[in-house]
């Protein structure tokens, strides 16, 4: 939907199915908090929603400059939605830089709320604008609402004990109040949040609450808008209890859940890295769940400490992003050789090297599948949405302990920082995979195999089972060092075979749409929402196109060859230069895979996918 250029004056409360708002301001303007509060309130109100925070890597880039712009996009809807929306219906720009960076995304005729108090000459200069966009005609075609928020906040907080600088820091809550009025949202959740957040400084509680109310009241008093809008509750969401969840939070909870369903205690060794650090922070707060966290001296020590903990019978896990993944690879190779369970979370970001730390990408796929010395295979699971990250973390734990292997869980920046409503599962409905440690010394051999080809897991401290493991090649069964040629080839094949055996425990993904035809859109990871949105739209328009999504990206599940054979082309959109396509072409050489790469640090838009599908069909 888009808000019509002139909302009817008579119709004071217009209903919409879905609205996309983007809050944009300086890194210090509190846009992430504003966005999160709007999200939380909309979630409690009962909307389906999806969010996309987009912020710079610098903590505080020079104030007022374009690199310092921080944005938060939220889409809230009365119907099921899959993405935070392509283009915002409403853009809130707190300064000229935020306007300049974001305006091109705003829908034609969209609502633009501008803080004119921040449009002085020096502000324009910081944003490298020669002319004032408020007066040069560049905003024609949008519904511009100009408010001097700086002044209004100062007026509203007249007499406050806060300094003028501190008063100005309440601007974001004034803005939030205004948006609450416009979209008919209750103030209570944010009032309560402020009271809790600043409990130790009552002056801040009062000032921010006052600013929020002032913003809300301004909507009523000042006739800024011609009407209010409403996005009713989403009635099609499945029944249940929900909470809003971010991807990194879901991974942290999923690891705790996975360890518990294995009957193990979690050890999490990690080194801070954007955008994965919140997983460490979150788990450090879960100590009462028996979780042990260690902030290691580097990425290598992080994975090695986790492997050490697995060696003595905990579930070792670690999380990182691309550059850290590169450093961990030798350690992961050892875990493959000594066949111990381990979960490595890779929250992908733009690369190569330091790349774009706060932006999203899917270009670690080949690194995690193939990036170690020699034949060092491991299973890879890729989560698709923030709430799916919970299930995928549990799944990664399952595979790790059942197959005695390291497992990589791929997430990305888009999932990590994005959020969505999560229908809370009951613990007993989660998969259960209790571990049995070997304790019987009779006929014990450290490298004997069970039906899954997994070797026994022995806790040091167990009498009579003393044994040594290491990175040197091991003799089949005994685990003794062996340089024998035949044995080496046998062991290399056995380890690979064990990883491929994971396929016996995973389902063939479902095809959504026609079971055969011209185009199948195949996705993996965080492209799910966009692809789903695009395909549903096309199907509504009568286009015969199907989609399928991969959760297990290595080994690939059974049944794909047969499915691929039923379509003329298989379109694979991914945020890299076609890494999954390379894997697919080598595994299934007889099908027509069409790569659709995008590497801009930004997720695909729905219209990009629909257009690519249509152009493929025209050929």
């Amino acid at each position, binding site marked *: 939907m888009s808000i019509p250029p002139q909302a009817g004056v008579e119709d004071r409360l217009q209903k919409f199915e879905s609205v996309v708002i983007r809050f944009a301001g300086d890194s210090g303007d509190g846009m992430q908090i504003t966005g999160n509060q709007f999200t939380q309130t909309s979630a409690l109100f009962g909307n389906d929603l999806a969010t996309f925070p987009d912020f710079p890597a610098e903590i505080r880039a020079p104030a007022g400059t374009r690199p310092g712009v921080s944005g938060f996009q939220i889409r809230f809807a009365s119907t099921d939605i899959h993405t935070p929306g392509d283009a915002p219906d409403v853009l809130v720009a707190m300064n000229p830089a935020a306007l300049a960076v974001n305006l091109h995304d705003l829908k034609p005729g969209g609502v633009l709320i501008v803080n004119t108090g921040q449009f002085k000459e020096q502000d324009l200069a910081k944003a490298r604008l020669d002319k004032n966009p408020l007066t040069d005609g560049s905003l024609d075609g949008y519904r511009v609402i100009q408010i001097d928020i700086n002044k209004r906040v100062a007026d509203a907080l007249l007499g406050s004990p806060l300094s003028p600088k501190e008063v100005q820091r309440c601007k974001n809550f004034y803005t939030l109040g205004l948006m609450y009025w416009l979209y008919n949202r209750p103030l209570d959740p944010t009032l309560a949040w402020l009271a809790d957040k600043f409990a130790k400084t009552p002056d801040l509680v009062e000032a921010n609450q006052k600013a929020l109310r002032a913003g809300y009241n301004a909507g009523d008093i000042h006739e800024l808008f011609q009407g209010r809008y409403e996005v009713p509750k989403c009635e099609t969401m499945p029944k249940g209890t929900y*909470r809003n969840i971010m991807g990194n939070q879901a991974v942290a909870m999923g690891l705790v859940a996975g360890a518990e369903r294995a009957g193990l205690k979690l050890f999490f060794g990690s080194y801070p890295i954007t955008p994965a650090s919140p997983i460490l922070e979150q788990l450090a707060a879960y100590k009462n769940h028996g979780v042990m966290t260690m902030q290691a001296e580097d990425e290598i020590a992080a994975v090695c400490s986790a492997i050490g903990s697995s060696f003595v019978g905990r579930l070792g896990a670690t999380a990182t992003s691309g550059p850290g993944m590169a450093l961990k690879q030798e350690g992961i190779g050892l875990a493959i050789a000594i066949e111990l369970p381990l979960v490595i979370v890779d929250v992908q970001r733009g690369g190569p090297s330091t790349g774009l730390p706060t932006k999203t990408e899917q270009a670690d796929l080949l690194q995690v599948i193939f990036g170690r010395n020699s034949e060092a295979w491991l299973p890879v699971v890729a989560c698709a949405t923030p709430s799916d990250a919970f299930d995928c973390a549990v799944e990664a734990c399952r595979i790790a302990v059942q197959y005695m292997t390291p497992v990589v869980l791929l997430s990305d920046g888009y999932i990590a920082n994005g959020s969505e409503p999560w229908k809370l599962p009951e613990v007993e409905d989660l998969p259960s995979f209790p571990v049995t440690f070997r304790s019987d010394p009779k006929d014990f051999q450290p490298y004997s195999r069970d039906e899954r080809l997994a070797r026994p897991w022995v806790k040091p401290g167990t009498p009579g089972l003393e044994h040594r493991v*290491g990175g040197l090649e091991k003799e089949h069964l005994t685990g003794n060092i062996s340089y024998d040629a035949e044995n080496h080839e046998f062991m290399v094949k056995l380890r690979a075979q064990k990883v491929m055996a994971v396929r016996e425990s995973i389902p063939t993904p479902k095809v959504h749409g026609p079971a055969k035809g011209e185009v199948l859109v195949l996705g993996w990871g965080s492209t799910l929402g966009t692809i789903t949105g695009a395909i549903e739209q096309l199907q509504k328009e009568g286009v015969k196109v199907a989609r399928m999504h991969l959760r297990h990206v290595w080994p690939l599940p059974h049944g794909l060859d047969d499915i691929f054979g039923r379509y003329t082309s298989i379109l694979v959109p991914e945020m890299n230069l076609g890494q999954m396509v390379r894997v697919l072409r080598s595994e299934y050489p007889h099908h027509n895979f069409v790569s659709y790469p995008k590497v801009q640090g930004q997720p695909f838009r729905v219209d990009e996918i629909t257009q690519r599908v249509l152009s493929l069909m025209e050929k």
Partner: protein
Amino acid sequence: MAHETTTAPMTTPGPAPVTKKDFKSDQEVRWCPGCGDYAILNMVQTVMAGLGIPRHDIVFVSGIGCSSRFPYYMNTYGLHSIHGRAPAFATGIKSANPKLSVWLATGDGDGLSIGGNHLAHILRRNVDVKILLFNNQIYGLTKGQYSPTSPVGQKTKSSPMGTIDRPFNPLAFALGCNATFVARTIDTHQKHMQGVLEAAAQHKGASFVEIYQNCNIFNDGAFDDIAARDVRDDRTVDLRPGKPLVYGKNSDKGIKIDAMETKVVSAAEATVWNASTKSGAPAYVLAEMDLEKPEKPVPIGIFRSVEEPTYDQEINRQVAAAIAKRGPGKLRDLIWSGETWEVS
């Protein structure tokens, strides 16, 4: 298949072993004949037998290099890991199960070159792990390149004109990391090694023991000037806490620490050694005596021994404290936390 190793039947549980023999694994020891590592292995097995810790509660961890083959020869649990990272594995092991007695075998290359970072951090964290650094001042397993402890000017395969790198003093390194137990011994000095290893084993916290070890293939006789039986007494001074710093064949010479300098004095004037001073500075001053050989003796023995909370204790204490304060976490409560709403 032809295998180099033999497979003996697995042992069954029984009473805690008491003899050195119980700590010998079924693996054939494959160091070069005449290597100083044999003497270290022999003494570690001897000391182990006297500790009263059951074999199944002991873990030996190592990295890569000649010294890092050590775990294969100990009939305990063992992890032969990757180059330089043994301290990180050991930290995970000891934290996850503090009941285990964890030992780490490393070398000058593994511990101070590729793994310098991890060695620094296991020491400053004070993880209760016994670290044995075999220092032979050479890379043995890669066949004779210089190491971070090779003296300046040493000619090796990778330094045909002599090394230009200034070497590490492992003791000074450990003291700089605020290690709580720092000692040095010599492979050929079995009795001395026994005393040092026993003290290291008794210490609660990270124990760092540098062992001068002769590589008879690539750096033969590197320590002969101080360690050979006939010169040892005159060329080394043994640091024994509570005892004066006396040395010499006739125990007639002493070392006095005065204004952050060491002086050779008569035995009567020798400083009574205190390894537990608040500051590690006196230990550091002694460690630096290496630079003044042959005028001054090379110090061996116990440089530092202080009690500090251990990382493994603390990490477990925090978990226990969180459980005591908030009750054992229930998974459902965790999932169902935060602000929730109903869709009906």
